[in-house]
């Protein structure tokens, strides 16, 4: 019986808290909105803690900048103020459902995110159940959108990215032997390695792959192995913290083999690790700094004038591709709201498939699964003397 009382008490406390928080958000919205009244909330479903925090924060940065640039949207003849509502999914699949329902509970009109496919897949069913459309920004795993009508995404997929990188390895280095290294149990790493292997082997190459356990710090054995096996390229589609370790250790080993990385390696922390070394690092990514002058300038100003943003970006103003993607995602969301003519989530969901938008990362349109139609990726390389990214080429896949 006490249990029931406890449940009831829980309910009451909940109500009061909910009342408080909704009152609070109403107050802040009222204080901020100059035109007063109508607000459309966009949920930001991103990791701010855990393994992927670094990437999640940079993605949020793009959305915040876009929001500061265009804080209102006109839909159905009315001007709405757009408010970003955040929920931290903690980079972990067991925290993702509650973060997702947090957003649902805050009555958002649609959701952007997340960085990291695992959390997106864990949150996806919640959004689907709530009839809430979600636009994935940089979650590249095929299973995010497959089987979920409500999940869309504006980035390319793992198989495309791996295809691009394998082709790049063959074209640029005439690589015959590739060494792949991914984290054990990480679907992102393992998916890319598997697709890379398929393409590379189909082209007559040889692939050696290894997985390292989670929280591993010693990569020298793997790197030395790659060297002694005579690999032509090393493919490391790993998350930022590991990528950093691998680069630092490769520099001290004088490894001399070019590294290929996926979009996660397009991060200024990884870049920093390659500075003043003789490493060769090539990454495939969504956006290349210099792609849009106005965006570059705007976001750099935004980052430099805001200490929180600067910290979130890792202490400097190098633009990560995920930031550009976050920026584009925000505008795609606005387009969807405009097309829907209101903040109604069902109408927005119906409007998304036909949205077309020319973003800084290229033009965005959706196919029937809800994935972005994209056929190119940017390859950039780390300029180790200046510590910046240099544009290498625009690479297309093998077309398969």
């Amino acid at each position, binding site marked *: 019986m006490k*249990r029931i009382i406890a449940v009831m008490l829980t309910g009451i406390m909940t109500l009061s808290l909910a009342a408080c928080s909704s009152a609070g958000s109403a107050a802040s919205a009222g204080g901020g909105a100059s035109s007063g009244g109508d607000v459309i909330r966009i949920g930001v479903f991103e990791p701010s803690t855990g393994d992927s925090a670094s990437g999640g924060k940079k993605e949020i940065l793009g959305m915040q900048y876009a929001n500061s640039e265009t804080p209102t949207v006109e839909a159905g003849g009315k001007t709405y103020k757009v408010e970003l509502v955040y929920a931290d999914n903690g980079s972990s*699949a067991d925290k993702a459902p509650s973060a997702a329902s947090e957003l649902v509970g805050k009555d958002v009109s649609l959701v952007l995110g997340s960085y990291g496919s695992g959390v997106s897949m864990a949150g996806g069913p919640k959004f689907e159940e709530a009839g809430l459309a979600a636009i994935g920004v940089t979650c590249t795993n095929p*299973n995010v959108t497959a089987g979920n009508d409500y999940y869309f995404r504006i980035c390319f997929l793992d198989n495309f990215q791996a295809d691009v990188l394998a082709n790049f390895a063959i074209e640029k280095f005439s690589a015959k032997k590739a060494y792949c290294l991914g984290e054990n149990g990480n679907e992102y790493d393992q998916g890319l390695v598997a697709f890379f292997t398929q393409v590379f082997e189909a082209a007559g190459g040889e692939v050696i792959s290894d997985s390292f356990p989670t929280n591993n710090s010693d990569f020298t054995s793997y790197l030395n192995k790659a060297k002694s096996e005579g690999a032509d390229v090393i493919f490391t589609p790993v998350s930022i913290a590991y990528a950093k370790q691998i680069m630092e250790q490769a520099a001290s080993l004088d490894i001399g083999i070019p590294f290929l990385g996926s979009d996660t390696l397009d991060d200024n922390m990884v870049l920093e690790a390659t500075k003043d070394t003789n490493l060769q690092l090539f990454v495939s990514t969504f956006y290349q700094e210099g792609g849009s002058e106005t965006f570059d300038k705007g976001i750099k100003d935004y980052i430099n004038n805001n200490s929180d943003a600067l910290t979130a970006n890792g202490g400097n103003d190098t633009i990560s591709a995920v930031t550009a993607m976050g920026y584009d995602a925000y505008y795609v969301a606005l387009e969807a709201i405009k097309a829907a003519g209101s903040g109604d989530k069902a109408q927005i969901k119906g409007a998304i498939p036909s949205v077309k938008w020319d973003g800084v990362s290229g033009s965005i349109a959706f196919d029937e699964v809800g994935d972005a139609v994209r056929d190119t990726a940017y390859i950039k390389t780390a300029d180790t003397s200046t510590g910046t990214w240099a544009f290498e080429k625009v690479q297309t896949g093998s077309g398969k």
Partner: protein
Amino acid sequence: MSEKKSNLPALIGIVILFLFIILLENIRSFIPGLPMIFDPMSPLFTVLKKAAVYSLVAVSMNLLNGFTGLFSLGQAGFMLLGAYTYAILTVPSAMKDQVYYLFGGCAFQFSLVDFFQGIFGSAGAGYAVGLILSCLIAIILAGVVAGFFAFLIGFPVLRLKSDYLAIATLGFAEILRAIFQWQTLGPVTNGANMIKGFPTFTSFNITGAGGQVVLRLSTFVPFLITTVCIAIIVLLINSSYGRAFKSIRDDEIAAEAMGIRLFSHKMLSFVISSFFAGVGGAMFAMYVANAQAKAFTSTMTYEILLIVVIGGIGSVSGSVLATFLYVACSEWWLRFLDSEQYIGSFKVPLLRNGFRMVVFSVVIMIIVLFFSQGIMGNREIDLNAIFTGKKRRSGSQGK
């Protein structure tokens, strides 16, 4: 304990609880004007579901740590076994190629869902019967697999003493995780990828012809399973086996001298606890709608251990209560600590991402240090006493 007691009041209480949950879950479809919090997608229900799942795991851990005195940290490993067993058995064949896309389909084509749909049909009442049967069997098998592994692991590790046992079981959980993430086993475990597409709690919502939900049961189902399982555990604790477990906890040597076979009782407790951890794992998979080894880390075990401690080691109702409080705080009530808050125009300092977990761990340390008995100590909430209004002497819980 000799007096015959009626369990009727407790039963009535549970039935009322169930009805209340169903009502709560559906109330917004009768009275649409209610606040957002009653929306079936609101954090309230997510928290209730997660807490229902975790409370079973917490009670199962309490059975081992609190009632038998075996300090085991392998709970996440057994949950992992349960989650994967459930997932592999219930993913419909049609989904398998999509889910196992890296491995060109699953090596294990059988699916309980398809099997029962073949018997009862795939629509209407037949579908419902098939769904319930397949989930039920899959959940039980999830428990059996976890229990069986516990049986195998138990032979070497149950001979170890307290903290060695803890570290050995922790090690086993880590080994299991590495095996399930191994790409070579991918055709069965899907390697690093998550298995998804199997029936979840949401599948139990009753939908009308147009696909709209008529009656929501997605919060009720985890409550039902957890209640049944916890009831079984409570019956076990109150049986002669339970008394043997407690005597082992209080004094192994004395218990042995009294003729209790130490090893077989420890094994029994270990296997049963793991069985329910496996069931909990299957429910966890239903809750997050996927099964992925990455989630079942030692951090998860620690979380559950802390829940048990907060509730009181040796109290079933304490564990349940603590789970609801813990999950609600960590996933919901304290979330505001993670973002900037203003009181009027005053910006509250320190609040930013991650602060929630700092506050939370400080609270936990305070409980561990100053309230080492937890919320309930080793007492229980007595449902019967509350209903009949008379206070029965709490059984043989005390030392």
